[in-house]
């Protein structure tokens, strides 16, 4: 299903690290005592990549269809665990119109199990991993004859933005500027956009103003209308931004295209499966690949068979995984889910099949990107325990060369 390749030698590893920093904007290459980059890549046979890419495209189609239906069904939004103000603004979409989306990007996280690939979640709001799955995968692939990166999501996203805009258009890259880990992603995407002749400006949401539904960038270094906004700032944080920045336009009543529009939060919620049965949209791929999901009220406490997830959790944080999470953290998750069941979801646990490497067995997650519905690349992460969180290492995902690589 998936394997590892022999590790890079020390010199190659150092060379990759240096180029990752200075060519690919990887500004967080070390976390504690460990490199953020695994010394080995993950490898897929073309058939396995085809299977993942096909599954991701099916999931993307269903996700966008579910989103469209949900936008017209505010009665279902209460099931999703969204902050009240955000929910209120999403419910205004039928009246004020949905802000146009452009360059829709998602990342579906797949895990190898004894029953085949299982998907644990979709990051449909602001998925990360562009640097690692594009530039770094290319740097690593250069050391492995006969293998190539599983696509290039940065290239796909930049191409999609270029298609959605006129030449020399101004693209605002909206993020938390003080956070280096996010800044690096925006800087990397900006390079790709500028290489296509577009102009870019890296801003925070607080630097946006809206006039007649059109976005304007208003900061000390630029005052100009934006032609498109790329958002790397999570939707559930937007209600806390200053009123003057007009954040609701990122999801309703806006005329400037946004990638992704903030109503993507509807499908980002881990509680979405609790609304499936009320939707007309067929969700066959989701039902086949996502483990059974219930409200915490209707499921056992985390044990060998069930786990707890925060509805809007990210990067594996706060997941209540029995035998893996620290007992203190597990108790805290159980307690909060009891007090606030609407903010959590219970999911049947799957058994990840470890991947053997020269340094021992690791658990792997392959995040497959789709851009405008097409599979575009893969973000690999590995960890010694069966939980992919902030302590996991990034691993390039390579595909044996053939005719199947995206």
């Amino acid at each position, binding site marked *: 299903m998936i394997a590892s390749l022999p590790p890079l030698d020390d010199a190659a590893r150092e060379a990759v690290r240096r180029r990752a*920093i*200075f*060519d690919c*904007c990887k*500004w*967080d*290459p*070390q976390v*504690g*005592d460990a490199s953020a980059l695994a010394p080995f890549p993950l490898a897929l046979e073309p058939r396995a990549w085809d299977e993942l890419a096909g599954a991701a495209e099916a999931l993307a189609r269903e996700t966008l269809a579910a989103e469209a239906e949900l936008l017209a069904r505010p009665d279902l939004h209460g099931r999703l*665990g969204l902050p009240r103000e955000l929910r209120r603004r999403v419910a205004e979409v039928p009246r004020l119109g949905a802000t146009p989306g452009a360059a829709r990007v998602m990342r579906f996280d797949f895990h190898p199990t004894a029953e085949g690939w299982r998907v644990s979640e979709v*990051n449909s*709001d*602001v*998925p*990360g991993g*562009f640097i690692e799955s594009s530039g770094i995968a290319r740097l690593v692939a250069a050391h492995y004859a006969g293998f190539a990166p599983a696509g290039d999501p940065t290239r796909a996203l930049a191409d999609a933005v270029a298609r959605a805009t006129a030449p020399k258009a101004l693209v605002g890259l909206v993020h*938390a*500027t*003080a*956070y*280096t*880990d*996010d*800044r690096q*992603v925006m*800087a990397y995407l900006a390079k790709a956009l500028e290489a296509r002749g577009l102009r870019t400006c890296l*801003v*925070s*949401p*607080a*630097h946006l103003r809206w006039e007649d539904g059109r976005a304007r960038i208003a*900061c*000390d*270094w630029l005052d100009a209308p934006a032609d498109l906004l790329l958002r*790397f*700032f*999570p939707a*559930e*944080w937007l209600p*806390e*931004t*200053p009123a003057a920045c007009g954040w609701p336009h990122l999801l309703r009543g806006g005329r400037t295209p946004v990638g992704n529009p903030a109503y993507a939060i509807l499908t980002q919620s881990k509680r979405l499966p609790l609304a499936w049965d009320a939707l007309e949209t067929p969700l066959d791929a989701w039902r086949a690949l996502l483990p059974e999901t219930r409200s915490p009220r209707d499921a056992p406490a985390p044990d060998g068979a069930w786990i707890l997830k*925060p*509805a*809007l959790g*990210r*990067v*594996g*944080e706060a997941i209540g995984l029995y035998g893996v999470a*620290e007992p203190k*953290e597990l108790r*805290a998750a159980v307690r*909060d889910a009891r007090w606030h069941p609407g*903010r*959590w979801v219970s999911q049947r646990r799957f058994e990840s099949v470890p991947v053997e490497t020269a340094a021992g067995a690791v658990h792997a997650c392959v995040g497959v990107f789709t851009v405008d519905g097409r599979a575009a690349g893969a973000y690999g*992460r590995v960890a010694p325990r069966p939980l*992919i969180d*902030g302590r996991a290492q*990034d691993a390039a995902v390579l595909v044996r060369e053939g005719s199947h690589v995206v």
Partner: protein
Amino acid sequence: MSSEGESLFGIWAPAGSPWSPWAKPVLFASAGRLERTVTLPATEVGWAREGSVVVVDLPGIMSVAAGVALAAKGHRPVPLYNGVHGAGAGVDQEPLLAALAAGAETLQGMRLPASAPPAFLLDARRFPPGRAAAPGKLDNRWMVFPQDLPSANLLLSHGLRHAVVLREDPLMDDLAHVLRRWQEAGIGIEEKLAKESDPPRPIEVRKPSRYRTAWYRALAILGLGRSDAGGFGMRVPIPAPPSPGGGGGFRGGGFFG
């Protein structure tokens, strides 16, 4: 990205040093043309001794100057400056970059052994207490977190049993989270006040608020968010707190997702 910045990074984080992986590249990677006219102020570091880690927490060029002076005493300076550099920046990084460029010329001529103990360099201007970035500015404040430095176990495995904090102002809360961990693992913590001639003296680092909580990093950033300017430009809402407070996710290809 700047090739001049890359060359500079190579001097401050040479391949042979075991401490280079911790050097933060962001400032070097975003450097433009470097100004080398800065003269680094003289810094008295006669108190530094072998077998000790030093954490320099001084403002701007003072931090770099102390790093260069410590290098002359046999320490390997490791820049941990993690603020972005750009137009409209709330925290001006130009003086820091100019100091790094000036310091590199001195550092380049030194032959520090791989066994040189580290001197981690922080900029005390990173998070001005009670001062948010002004509207329209680039919010580039930053904080240091435990995962930005080596663990106590790693330091101890290198025979480093003491850490000296060189500072002017009261110990900042973010650094206390690092030092308290080291202290609990058996590393003796001392402080040296830059403006006084007294030698370093042992201190007890008290438990900072939210110590060792899984959500500390999120909550710390929440503190950065009290601004109407940019960067966080907001208070961070807590979607699903497992403990009092809570926060979003961090790392793993960025803050989110």
